[in-house]
């Protein structure tokens, strides 16, 4: 087990390398650079082109692209994600302060997805063809077709309009004040989680229908077990296994959802930062955030693979 985890972590290195290289060159294709943003006056006009040129020289933006690439990669190898001249902070400091919200949003979205989809999928399968099944299937088609930012807006409007709710503006983090942090994240994470819940519900419904026809379910019934035990202990665990895979497939998408919803709900996460950073061509920060999001996805996949070993005895790592 330990050997496997170590090997998987080593595999992260080439993956991160490819991701970092791609985002580096992608950012060079985008016109404009941080030097301009650094030399803007209050009303949005450029101070002087000489000053811009000087800043470029200072930041090393005039160096050949390979030199810039080598410098950034070299620093990353040392664990240094670079320095944001605009924010006058180390990129890693900015990310450390913001990663929690983004990760929690995506993580909560998975939790909602699982909490909704397991009972709904199982009930739909058990009541196949009934009006309950129809209702649940309508929900899952709806959840699939509604974009999460639109759902976010809808939730926001409803909360504000009917419940006189206003987006909290205080800053906090989970360790200091878990309750308030959760309160802030619940609604946006629901908006992100609905699409996952919808897909997972459909998946669980269909695997459950399959599992209910399996020989081992018949064996369980032939033993005289109670119906609930047959469903919950014998059928359901086999039916919800594929949802684990689904969550690792969709996690990147959920992080993407978090990026959008943070902006909508005024949450200080990486999503807000990246939008801001792209606008000001804070390339180093954009690169740092993208690499961090990538690493989060890869670690999540590793965690899911390890979870599989726990729940499915047939799977061996080594």
């Amino acid at each position, binding site marked *: 087990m330990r050997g496997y985890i170590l090997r998987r972590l080593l595999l992260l290195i080439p993956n991160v390398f490819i991701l970092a290289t791609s985002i580096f060159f992608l950012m060079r294709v985008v016109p404009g650079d941080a030097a301009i943003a650094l030399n803007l006056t209050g009303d949005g006009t450029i101070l002087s082109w000489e000053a811009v040129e000087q800043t470029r020289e200072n930041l090393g933006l005039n160096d050949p692209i390979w030199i810039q690439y080598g410098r950034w990669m070299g620093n990353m190898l040392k664990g240094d994600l670079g320095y944001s001249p605009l924010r006058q902070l180390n990129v890693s400091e900015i990310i450390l302060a913001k990663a929690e919200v983004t990760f929690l949003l995506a993580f909560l979205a998975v939790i909602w997805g699982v909490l909704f989809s397991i009972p709904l999928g199982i009930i739909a399968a058990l009541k196949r063809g009934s009006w309950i099944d129809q209702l649940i299937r309508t929900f899952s088609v709806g959840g699939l077709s509604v974009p999460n930012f639109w759902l976010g807006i809808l939730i926001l409007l409803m909360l504000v309009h009917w419940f006189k709710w206003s987006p909290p503006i205080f800053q906090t983090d989970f360790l200091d004040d878990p309750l308030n942090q959760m309160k802030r994240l619940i609604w946006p994470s629901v908006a992100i989680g609905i699409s996952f819940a919808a897909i997972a519900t459909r998946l669980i419904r269909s695997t459950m229908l399959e599992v209910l*026809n399996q020989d081992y379910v018949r*064996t369980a019934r032939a033993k*005289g077990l109670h119906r609930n035990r047959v469903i919950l202990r014998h059928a359901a*665990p086999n039916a919800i296994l594929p949802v684990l895979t689904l969550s690792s497939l969709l996690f990147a998408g959920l992080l993407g959802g978090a990026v959008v919803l943070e902006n909508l709900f005024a949450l200080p996460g990486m999503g807000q930062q990246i939008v801001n950073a792209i606008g000001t061509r804070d390339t180093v920060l954009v690169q740092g955030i993208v690499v961090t999001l990538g690493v989060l996805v890869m670690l999540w996949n590793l965690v899911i693979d390890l979870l599989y070993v726990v729940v*499915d*005895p*047939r799977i061996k790592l080594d």
Partner: protein
Amino acid sequence: MPLLEVKNLKTHFFSDDAITKAVDGVSYNVEAGETVALVGESGCGKSVSSLSVMQLIPQPPGKIVDGEIIFGGQNLLELDREAMRRKRGREIAMIFQEPMTSLNPVISIETQLTEAMTLQLGITPKEAHTRAVELLDRVGIPEPDVRIKQYPHVFSGGMRQRVMVAMALSCEPKLIIADEPTTALDVTIQAQILDLMQDLAKERDMALLIITHNLGVVARYADRINIMYAGRIIERGTCKDIFADPRHPYTLGLLESIPRLDQPKGSKLIPIQGQPPNLSDLPPGCSFQPRCRFAQDKCSVEYPDITDLRNNHSSACWEVNNFKAIVESGVSK
């Protein structure tokens, strides 16, 4: 009074465009402690008739439309769901055809063995564990105290079927229904499992209903044999009756198609001609008539009732009384 008495059982499957009469008027008995076989070609309704006894027919599309299943003096079809659940495993246990898929892949052997015992016998998990280890030992699993902690995927097919046998025995039922318990296993293992089941059943005075498509397999074990064709029993009798004095052309066909020690060496095996009928579109009259060497006009008009010759040797053929003569005269279509 027999332990199990199935009377005129009819189990049909309903789909939009057809009714499949998988079991259509089946009757048979099993006495306490005896071994009875139910034999017939693939698809003739053997599994459906045994699952009907357990009331494990997938419903819909299946439905028991008629008949009685009397077990220990009680009609199981009149029991409510809870009462029927308490019979399963506790009084009638079942072993299935497919050992590879009949055990739950994500639950340990221990849990799968003990859960029924703690529920049905009301014993503690610890007692159930002890019993489970003993049972595994009895069915021939080496190192039972180690293997009990494992999961089904590390067991071979034969070992899994032994686990299934242990599971069936665990609540000391009065009847074990084994639905082709050895079809999926290789020949040497087949004999071992059947011997084991027979020994255990005799040891504990349990009745055994063995379902198979291979008449040869049951010759050694069964006290009585029921031959099934297209959803009905067409002949029944003791093992001796069936092998020495078959009274139905289908039974004769089955006997001619298996190798036998009591026949002269080199006698040819003759497969039964034609295909089993479609159970949703049965031919008129006797279902076997289109494949029968001795068919007469009458056969395609009316289905002969099953009639008793003597001592419970019965057959559903118009020529049941002078069957021998007909066979010898070699009347052939």
